[in-house]
């Protein structure tokens, strides 16, 4: 079992305490919660996704816990600009604000609110286009490039989180790269659905939802691997990571760091310490020795 040496790491312009970040949409609603997760051992935290207007999100049920994953359709609830007030107590901690918008202008507007307030921004592209017919921004390379550029020109580290629900994720990764992204985060949730056979309707209020957790780990590994071959940006792996071995696997696929979300539900906030205990040791190796080594 590979162990890594303990050290801060700078990825995509952001200095993290270790390689394990809290994923967007998980407990990232308040400054107090973000602080708590950092205190519990996360190397960095990504906030809930903030958009141009406040949103209540979808009617419930918003979540379904499966044997091997989570299905959710929160609907991007967020307090919009008011969220800046949550960050004042976090100082220079490794906080990355997840943002979304309906078009490049909205992305730029929301990004602007957080300039100087956070270590970086992560673009959530799994949001509907302002004039789209439900398809998310993240399936359109041209839009991805424009939204990325609209934010990266502001000068903050700009991570772009890709959706796996596309025919060719490398085309989207390259678009983010052209748009000036500092790093790619792969991946967001997989579009899915479950139906209650007892109540004869979808279990989620929104019917469709995003699948996360162990079930999608092989999809996430594949996406990281493909993007590592296609793009030159640092990659942050996300999707079903819940153990130190999963972290190593993601690194071997090409990831420099990882985001952890669903495992926080299954294993509670202590999952960061648990993974750190298995992952790090004083005499551990430099991750650079294994990042991408599966590409042989």
């Amino acid at each position, binding site marked *: 079992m590979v162990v890594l040496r303990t050290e801060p790491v700078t990825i995509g312009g952001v200095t993290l305490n270790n390689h394990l970040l809290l994923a967007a949409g998980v*407990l990232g609603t*308040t400054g*107090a919660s973000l602080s708590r997760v950092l205190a519990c051992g996360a190397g960095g935290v990504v906030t809930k996704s903030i958009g141009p207007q406040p949103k209540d*999100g979808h009617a419930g049920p*918003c*979540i379904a816990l499966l044997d*091997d994953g989570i299905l959710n359709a*929160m609907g991007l609830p967020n307090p919009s600009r008011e969220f800046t007030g949550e960050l004042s107590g976090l100082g220079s901690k490794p906080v990355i604000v997840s943002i979304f918008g309906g078009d490049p202008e909205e992305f730029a507007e929301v990004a602007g609110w957080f300039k100087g307030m956070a270590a970086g921004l992560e673009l959530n592209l799994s949001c509907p286009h302002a004039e789209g017919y439900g398809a998310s921004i993240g399936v359109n390379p041209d839009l991805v490039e424009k939204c990325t550029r609209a934010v990266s020109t502001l000068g903050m580290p700009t991570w772009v989180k890709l959706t796996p629900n596309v025919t060719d994720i490398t085309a989207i990764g390259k678009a983010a790269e052209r748009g000036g992204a500092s790093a790619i985060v792969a991946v967001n949730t997989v579009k899915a659905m479950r139906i209650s056979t007892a109540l004869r309707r979808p279990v989620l209020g929104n019917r469709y939802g995003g699948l996360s957790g162990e079930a999608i780990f092989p999809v996430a590994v594949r996406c990281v691997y493909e993007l590592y071959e296609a793009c030159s940006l640092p990659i942050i792996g996300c999707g079903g990571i819940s153990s130190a071995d999963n972290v190593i696997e993601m690194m071997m696929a090409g990831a420099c760091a990882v985001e952890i979300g669903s495992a926080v539900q299954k294993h509670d906030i202590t999952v960061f310490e648990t993974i750190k205990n298995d992952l790090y040791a004083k005499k551990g190796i430099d991750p650079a020795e294994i990042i991408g080594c599966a590409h042989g």
Partner: protein
Amino acid sequence: MDEQLPVQVTLTEIKTETPSVKTFFFDRTFAFEPGQFVMVWVPGVDEVPMALSSPNSVTVQKAGDATGAMFDLRVGMGLGIRGPYGKGFTRGEKMLAIGGGVGAAPLLPLARSDCVMTLLLGARTEKELLFVDQLDESTDVIIATDDGSLGQHGYVTDLFKEINPAVYDRIAVCGPEPMMRAVLAAVDTIGFAAKTEFSLHRYMKCGVGICGSCCIDHEGLRVCRDGPVFSGEQLKKSEFGHYTRDASGRKKKI
């Protein structure tokens, strides 16, 4: 995770408890600790947290779309339920319970487990008092109403001043947040904050500790997973009694 898709229950009885509160009985029982909640899915409407008032019932005040839709349901109709979730009341042997309005709902199963010596019960008016008869069977009930229509004319905090807290090993409180905040101040004055627990209500989306909708300041405790029952010590320096958050996460004064 072990699959926790909602189970379907059928309503077997709907009892009007007060002009604004109903109890919904269903055809399945849930093993739970008093103070735990379930996520109740009103099909086609929403899914919201509700306290179990017994192994096969939830007691609910009409307050929004979901509870409003529930009030339109009839016996024989279905709901989805998942849970129970959360941390319930720590059981003592000689407990004091303090309940206001629909807050008496989770205190009923606590009283029925034979650990509550005295229960201070408050409401705005006599008609809004919840579970008086049922509670009377399990514990000594002392009543206060804001308008004096029954019991003492005043609040449960007034009743609290007149009892001797030292005879109780633990205190359990559930009701409107301003009432609970006042009780916290009172127990803190006499050094009982650590032995007093409060059942919080916050807007929830997931109910299982992942979305963060119900996190309270300033420690980031999750009402659905670290609570809904918290000790007075945990709550003293929190947002408790001052503000809450709405569905979008914006702060709202209480």
